[in-house]
């Protein structure tokens, strides 16, 4: 169901991972992504797996949620997997039929890329599981704020992201509600060919758009009523502060990154 989409879904908790400074956590996620892309072999990815599992265990988020975060991107994984499988022709030929050729190189790349994408999604999902969207955009705003000198609208972008993230669950809920309402009127969303299904979505998308615009208008009005006029001179309720644990986490992450680089140089698998 539509509720399975978990991006931007915060899982409240009090673990070490939850309490990390969001700016540091964002940095760690970037380092983790770098780690995955630097890794040229399966051993390197293995280090990434260990790092991810460690982070998940520390966060106290059930591992089930990790798998759940992968679910929406399964089609992308399959798609890239098929492309890699058929279009990379290096190594020995395993199977040949007319123009289709499957090689060991293709197979290896397919598995490697799929693992990389899955690790990528799980890691970034952990960030959103353990960081509330508001804190996250706060961190982004702080990271981008030096760019204000060149008139980069850091606050506005952060505000837009906060609002967008804030409304994802609302819109999902709304979609669910509209779907239920149209199903109650006999809408058939699950059968038929692609065109019939696309057409069946019209009664859901139109009310959804209408309500999104209505919400946007109401929100803008409500913000203006509370004298919102952009970021100038705004102070914050919660100041971000780094603690020793942030530096420890950073050190551990750098250690893992170093391990991946070392493996790249000395081991070729």
């Amino acid at each position, binding site marked *: 169901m539509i509720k399975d989409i978990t991006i931007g879904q915060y*899982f409240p*908790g009090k673990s070490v991972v939850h309490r990390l400074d969001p700016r540091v956590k964002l940095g760690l996620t970037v380092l983790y992504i770098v780690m995955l892309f630097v890794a040229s072999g399966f051993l390197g990815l293995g280090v990434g797996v260990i790092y991810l599992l460690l982070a998940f265990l520390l966060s106290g988020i059930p591992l089930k949620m990790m798998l759940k975060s992968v679910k929406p991107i399964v089609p992308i994984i399959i798609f890239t997997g098929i492309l890699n499988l058929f279009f990379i022709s290096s190594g020995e030929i395993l199977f040949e039929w007319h123009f289709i050729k499957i090689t060991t190189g293709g197979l290896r790349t397919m598995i490697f890329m799929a693992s990389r994408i899955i690790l990528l999604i799980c890691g970034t999902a952990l960030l959103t599981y353990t960081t509330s969207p508001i804190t996250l955009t706060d961190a982004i705003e702080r990271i981008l704020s030096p760019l204000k000198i060149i008139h980069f609208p850091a606050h506005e972008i952060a505000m837009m992201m906060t609002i967008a993230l804030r409304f994802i669950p609302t819109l999902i809920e709304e979609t669910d*509600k509209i779907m*239920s309402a149209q199903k109650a009127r006999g*809408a058939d969303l699950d059968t038929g060919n692609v065109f019939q299904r696309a057409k069946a979505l019209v009664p859901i998308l139109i*009310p959804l758009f209408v309500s999104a615009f209505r919400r946007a208008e109401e929100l803008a009005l409500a913000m203006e009523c509370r004298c919102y006029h952009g970021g100038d001179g705004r102070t914050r309720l919660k100041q971000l502060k780094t603690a020793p644990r942030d530096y420890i986490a950073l050190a551990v992450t750098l250690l893992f990154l170093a391990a991946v680089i070392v493996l790249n140089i000395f081991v070729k698998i």
Partner: protein
Amino acid sequence: MGIIRTENLSYVYGEGTPFRKVAVDSVDIDIDEGEIVGIIGHTGSGKSTLIQHFNGLLKPTSGKVFIDGEELFADKSRLKEIRFKVGLVFQYPEYQLFEETVYKDIAYGPKNMGLSDDDTDRRIKETARLVGLGPELLQKSPFELSGGQKRRVAIAGVMAMEPKVLILDEPTAGLDPKGRDMILRMIKEYHAEKGVTVLLVSHSMEDVAKTVSKILVMNDAKVFMYGDRSQVFARAEELTSMGLTVPQVTRVFDRLRAMGVEFSDEVFSVDYAKDLVMRLLKEKGDVKVD
């Protein structure tokens, strides 16, 4: 056996997450055909979740639902048929309107049922009359109408499917008193004319008392009681303790009775109260209180 029956029905939201919540807790009810029933309970008592089981939009976590003697989810391919039998009007149904014209929007349900154009046309005209939408409105865009009109179009969209059971979730939410009375009167007329089962979900006792004959009270995901209006309102104190109220006029007459004035009947609506008082005044010249 009634048209809607549940056996030990339970529903849990977010099983296995920190947000786990039991929304409906072992509910056993049996609603007879042709009845007009009010379902009340304060916000979060599980009313809306309960009714979504009646046309198979939600699958029970445990327990069974029978509609017209047929078990829901026993055969998934029958689900669509059952949805045509049980019409469900959601809260703020005007947000589901999408067609270019009112006429087409009302036609959406009947068309999904596979009815012929003639049949659909007949039903649209009939329900439009029932909900008090003039023929001149039918060719307008639903987005041009007023809030109350939109609501009536949305309700008509479900009524046009001529379900055996019509369920309305807070049909009067957010309307002014005039719009509210209009919707309630419309529901009553629809029930009287078609003789079908109607379920009216509300947290307003006043609304419910005016419209229905039986009441189902939900509290904390459980059915607190199901019975005739007078039976339910007789337990005014318990209702108050769960944040519900007995209609004002009923309370006034309960007090009068406690003071020793004789009334033959329970009083649920101001109109009826007026008649009763007028009759008493006529009989006695004036009402004696001792």
